[in-house]
């Protein structure tokens, strides 16, 4: 097996300075345009259908979140009890829910809060995890000891209990402040797993010979972390974060169910899934529609993350 791998990539370029080597490769080549990892990754991504499919899905959901009016003419707040669980009619292609609201319109309008919570929590989580994981893994010693204990402590805090305590303080705040608070709580409590993943891949990367080589050239800590360790330890973090994105959207639902997350008039998939779940016996569409939106969105992000991760690995090219 290993026998084969070592030669599989070899080019038959003869060693020109060997005594028996041929006169050698021509040296008249002009200075070529430099290429970067990001540039090569982009060239690779452009040819990847998975990337385009996931990108379209993510774009649609994002667009939905920004201008929901493009996707439905109905008002999600226009709920009439007489239409309770009624079938499709007019613009309401999926019919009406328990409260007599347009299921489809609610799913469209719910994308804003859900996406904001999911994407921003994942983003902040990623930033915290990268910084903490990098510092702990790279410097080791007491820095690692302290940061690792912090990770353990945060990991030990029960999410719901802490969320209740923290969100209680904003129970009377407006919708925007609530969203901010939920994102804050999820990011502050949710970064630990990703940080551990980053820390361990940083430790693996920092032991590599190429890091020693850079140090021998006189490279400082900043360059080594940024140029050598970060690109080589990002892949597992991307996977963890794309999965976390879905988890955060779901966590928002749980918080809402407990009455400490988002609240009407803010519409979110989480709340609707929760309400739909309660009334599942009477009609399942109000549960299925927001769930499908959620599933598709999470899937799109995971696929996007996968495609990006692979594109940044030259070996898979």
């Amino acid at each position, binding site marked *: 097996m290993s026998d084969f791998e*070592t030669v599989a990539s*070899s080019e038959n370029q003869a060693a020109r300075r*060997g005594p028996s080597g041929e006169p050698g490769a021509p040296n008249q080549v002009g200075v070529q345009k430099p290429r970067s990892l990001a540039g090569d990754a982009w060239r690779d991504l452009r040819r990847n259908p998975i990337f385009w499919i996931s990108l379209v899905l993510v774009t649609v959901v994002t667009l939905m979140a920004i201008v929901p009016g493009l996707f439905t003419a109905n008002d999600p707040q226009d709920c009439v009890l007489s239409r309770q669980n009624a079938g499709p009619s007019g613009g309401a292609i999926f019919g009406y829910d328990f409260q007599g609201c347009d299921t489809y319109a609610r799913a469209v309008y719910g994308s804003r809060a859900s996406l904001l919570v999911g994407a921003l929590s994942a983003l902040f989580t990623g930033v915290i995890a990268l910084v903490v994981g990098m510092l702990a893994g790279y410097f080791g010693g007491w820095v690692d000891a302290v940061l690792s204990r912090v990770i353990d402590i945060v990991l030990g805090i029960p999410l719901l209990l802490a969320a209740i305590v923290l969100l209680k303080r904003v129970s009377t705040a407006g919708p925007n402040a609530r969203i901010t608070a939920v994102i804050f709580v999820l990011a502050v409590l949710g970064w630990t797993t990703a940080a551990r993943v980053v820390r361990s891949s940083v430790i693996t990367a920092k032991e590599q010979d190429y890091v020693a080589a850079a140090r021998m050239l006189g490279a400082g800590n900043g360059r080594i972390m940024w140029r050598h360790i970060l690109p080589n330890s990002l892949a597992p973090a991307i996977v963890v974060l794309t999965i976390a994105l879905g988890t955060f959207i779901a966590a928002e639902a749980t918080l809402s169910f407990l009455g400490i997350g988002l609240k009407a008039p803010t519409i979110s998939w989480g709340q609707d899934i929760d309400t739909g779940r309660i009334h599942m016996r009477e009609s399942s569409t109000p549960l299925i529609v927001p769930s499908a939106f959620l599933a598709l969105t999470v899937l799109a992000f995971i696929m996007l993350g996968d495609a990006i991760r692979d594109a940044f690995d030259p070996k898979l090219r």
Partner: protein
Amino acid sequence: MTNSTVQPTPASATPEGGHLLEVRDLYVEFRTSEGVAKVINGVSYHLDAGETLAVLGESGSGKSVTAQAIMGILDSPPAHVRSGQILYQGHDLLTQPEEQRRQVRGKEIAMIFQDALSALNPVFPVGWQISETLRTREGMSRADARRRAIELMDLVKIPAAERRIGDYPHQFSGGMRQRVMIAMALALNPKVLIADEPTTALDVTVQAQIMDLLADLRRDLGMAMILITHDLGVVAGVADRIAVMYAGRIVEHADVRSLYRAPAHPYTKGLLESIPRLDVRGQELATIRGLPPNLMRIPSGCPFHPRCPYVQQVCVDVVPHDLVLGDGRTSACHFAQEVRDDSAR
């Protein structure tokens, strides 16, 4: 074109029956997403009881894959045996059901690897690992297996075997771990021992100890042995015959002495000339130009032709057969005679 004293013979001209182990015209390929790599391209060799065959080659030559095919431990997929036979005592191992093959593996043919540390399980004591085979395969009792394990550790000259039987692999030095591996391989009294680069990971002084041990064991136990190596120096003292592999083919096959004195294939010749010698301080080492071929695009004709100083048009067009050069020597080169005569000078 070919010299008149040289008769081309098909690869399977060896007499029927006689051999303990015989690989016949074996073809193995790795089917990967990037394409098909032709790893073994018509390898034939044989081994008689009590004999030692060295298989010499660089990475990618297919020397280890051939051994894995004999043991039936190829990773498939991606590996795929396209054709050929592996006869053990006249029975084709490749057509046998897995159940029967498992009986042969370990009991008839055993194998040791280069990296003893990763081949041993770090969470079990070595004695337990040696006796495990005896208990599961031979149905020995715990006490008997333990006793036999100590015997085996004595046999491979691990000092204070009785005391060390409870030690874990990491408590042994590299050389001692390789001895443990050999003891495990010998547990079921195999008739053939395949050693894949057994000393590559070891220091020179330890290397010599392990090669001595293997030579002693072969003599005392009457085993046949296949030594796979990239270093001719290591096997020169132990091997009876040497098969040199390149790009999945055996390019030269000879006894150690004549191979060293007058290699008859340009690859062997180049390889011998590129090794720095301890007793000579040379000016510049001779090199083989270029790189081993990509196994997905093996050159036409003779696979060595792009790197060969003897290359002619015929080498590009025609795949050379094994030419018999007398004394049981063969060389897969159109100009084997000339190369040998050049080397002998």
